[in-house]
């Protein structure tokens, strides 16, 4: 009788040892994967940049500068005659509210007439609520409106024509 009980215990011990060995052979852990998605930045051109109608100087070049801060604000070199129509561009940006956005524009572009004559535009500037040194903040409604200005270089006795060109504005979340 004693032997029989001992035998059962021995078998139970052997089984326990086998179970212990089996449970020790593998381990696992659960961990979280996480990501945060912001709304995509979107931009819409509201108004084009216009340098207006200009009468050039036959004896020298001059600049026309459009102010990014206010509508229809043009600074004309003294040797040019800026007659009408100069105005800043306006762009509307939408994205995550209260988020800082870095804004850049083309360094310079070329305006070309139908006849192939050209003028250079450079010195693009931005203005808007909270804008400073290339960085602006989207407002609490998720919107940001910026004005864009630049400087047009009008050549000596610049040929007559309607000059156009395209500039690029790029923005990224900061």
């Amino acid at each position, binding site marked *: 009788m004693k032997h*029989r009980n001992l*035998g059962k215990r021995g078998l139970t011990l052997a089984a326990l040892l086998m179970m212990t060995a089996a449970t020790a052979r*593998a381990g696992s*852990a659960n*961990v979280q994967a*996480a*990501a945060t998605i*912001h709304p995509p930045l979107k931009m819409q051109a509201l108004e084009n940049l216009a340098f207006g109608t200009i009468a050039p100087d036959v004896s020298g070049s001059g600049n026309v500068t459009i102010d990014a801060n206010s509508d229809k604000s043009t600074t004309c070199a003294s040797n040019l005659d800026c007659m009408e129509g100069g105005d800043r561009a306006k762009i509307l940006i939408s994205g995550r509210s209260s988020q800082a956005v870095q804004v850049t524009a083309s360094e310079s572009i070329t305006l070309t007439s139908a006849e192939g004559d050209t003028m250079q535009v450079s010195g693009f500037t931005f203005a808007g609520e909270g804008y400073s040194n290339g960085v602006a903040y989207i407002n609490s409604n998720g919107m940001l409106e910026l004005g864009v200005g630049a400087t047009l270089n009008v050549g000596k006795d610049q040929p007559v024509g309607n000059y156009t060109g395209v500039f690029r504005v790029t923005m990224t979340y900061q």
Partner: protein
Amino acid sequence: MTKTGQKILSALIFAALISASHSTQAQNNKAQNWKKSLKLVALDQLEFGTIAPSSNFDGYVEVSPNQNNSSICSHNLTCLYGGSRARFRITGRRHQGIYITLPNQVILRNQAGQTMIADNFQYYASGFGQGIGYINGNGAIELGVGAQLNVQANQMPGAYQGTFEVTVSYQ
């Protein structure tokens, strides 16, 4: 008690006696090493970072398994704050070969129920090959896990989360 039972019992007792008669420190260590369970503890979660999706194109974020704070963002996405790998500590028998199993894919959800899929899970541990490696002489090893997050055009904003399981087993 059956004859088979008697034999098993005798063998166990005999083994115990032999073990007791060789009680050197080295053998105790060896026995402890043999008994050591394989354990996996999560140290850091897998973080894909903060991402601004494209309005027009799908994109992806790849988090490297072999260094912290290392992620690559496809050109049509903006990765704002960096992603970083998950980290685990594996403890077990020294010099023992182990297998590592990662998920094929994991679904991340935001509070509104929108989803993204993470796949291409990869791991890195010093001295490990693909799918198999060895625990070092200290009985512990650190495991890094990276993956690719697939972000759709106009992916809805929100904080996305999902859970994945990593399994290790002795060879």
